[in-house]
């Protein structure tokens, strides 16, 4: 008798438990299906043909603190379309967009100018600043992009490592760098001041999160940071560059984008 529920309430606990079970399943399914809605199609509100909003955004971008000079550039430095990414090496989302950024840079090649900016979120990511410095130190031996890629692809390893600086030195060795110079450069002012300059640029642009991608000064919403989304923005900017800028009349100078 002790161990059995009372007759008059025998079904009730099971009913309650069953109901909660059903609610949990249905609720979970509802959450699942509602968050599976496809992202909004690309809006070209950022284009600077004649809106008053877009040119200001581009102005801000052009007037912002310059960042590390010269920046790390892929593609053609003279291209009319600049794609600028602000990223944090310790940010998992940045690591996950790395393959698609690579796809973009290889697909467009010399037709775009791709700039990578360090924006280590030092307040929340304890190793992000060191990683950015490591990439810059590798850059001082001409291997910035290789290190940048290694840091993203091995993110989990060095983030979990008790001695991440040793990991960075191992990556430097893998890339055939002079490890001693790499380690000295990591401690030196030049690499750090490049990271700091990029940080300053990110702050003056009020970049809120990483990764943030700008295309010709227009901040691309994160939902559009996909191969298709970015291609759409780049294509429309390329088209505009080819057609010249009607808003400015015929006074546009010929662009130097074709020859390097």
């Amino acid at each position: 008798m002790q161990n059995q529920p009372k007759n008059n309430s025998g079904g009730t606990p099971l009913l309650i438990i069953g109901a909660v079970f059903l609610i949990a399943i249905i609720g979970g399914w509802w959450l699942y299906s509602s968050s599976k809605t496809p992202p909004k199609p690309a809006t070209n509100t950022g284009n600077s043909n004649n809106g008053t909003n877009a040119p200001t955004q581009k102005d801000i971008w052009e007037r912002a603190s310059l960042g590390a000079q010269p920046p790390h550039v892929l593609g053609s430095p003279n291209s009319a379309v600049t794609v600028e990414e602000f990223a944090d090496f310790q940010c998992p989302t940045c690591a996950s967009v790395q393959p698609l950024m690579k796809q973009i840079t290889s697909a467009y090649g010399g037709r775009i100018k791709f700039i990578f900016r360090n924006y280590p979120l030092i307040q929340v990511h304890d190793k992000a600043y060191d990683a950015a410095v490591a990439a810059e130190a590798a850059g001082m031996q001409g291997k910035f992009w290789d290190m940048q890629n290694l840091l993203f692809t091995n993110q989990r390893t060095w983030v979990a490592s008790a001695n991440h600086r040793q990991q960075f030195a191992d990556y430097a060795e893998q890339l055939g760098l002079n490890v001693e110079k790499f380690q000295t450069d990591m401690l030196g002012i030049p690499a750090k001041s490049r990271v700091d300059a990029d940080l300053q640029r990110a702050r003056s642009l009020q970049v809120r999160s990483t990764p943030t991608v700008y295309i010709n000064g227009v901040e691309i919403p994160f939902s559009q940071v996909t191969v298709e989304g970015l291609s759409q923005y780049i294509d429309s900017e390329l088209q505009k560059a080819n057609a010249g800028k009607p808003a400015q009349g015929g006074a546009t100078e010929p662009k130097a984008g074709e020859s390097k």
Partner: protein
Amino acid sequence: MSASEELIEKTGGGFLSKLPILAAAVALIGLADSVYLTVKHFTGEKVPCSIVSGCEQVLTSEYAEIFGIPTAAFGALAYFAAFSLAVMTLYGDRRMWTLFGVQTVIMLLFTIWLFYLQAFVIGAFCQFCLLSAVTTLVLFLIFIGSKFFSGR
């Protein structure tokens, strides 16, 4: 004798009879939380990192899955079990309260491990994981409280 009268008789009456109700309610919060985390795991939504909200460092870590099953799904099961045991206690089956105690101890150990991972291995916290840690701790304290007061 109604179920609640029986419970009062078995637990010594007073506010103690309210403890399983409280436990069931807290377990429901934990259940909702872990169902949310499980769903989030499957939809794989990527969130940009920011200083204010952090990012999905914990939920994308290698500890987000155990044997290929999302860690949060284990949480959902555990909270569902805790809820069921509390409800059955409420309806007079006192053995279930002992099982509830065993359940909360297991959950607490698991929670301590997850907290350790966040603090010392991943180096980041996840808000909804911390909420789960709190609900588990409360469930455990409710059980300890029931033993402590009925022991007098």
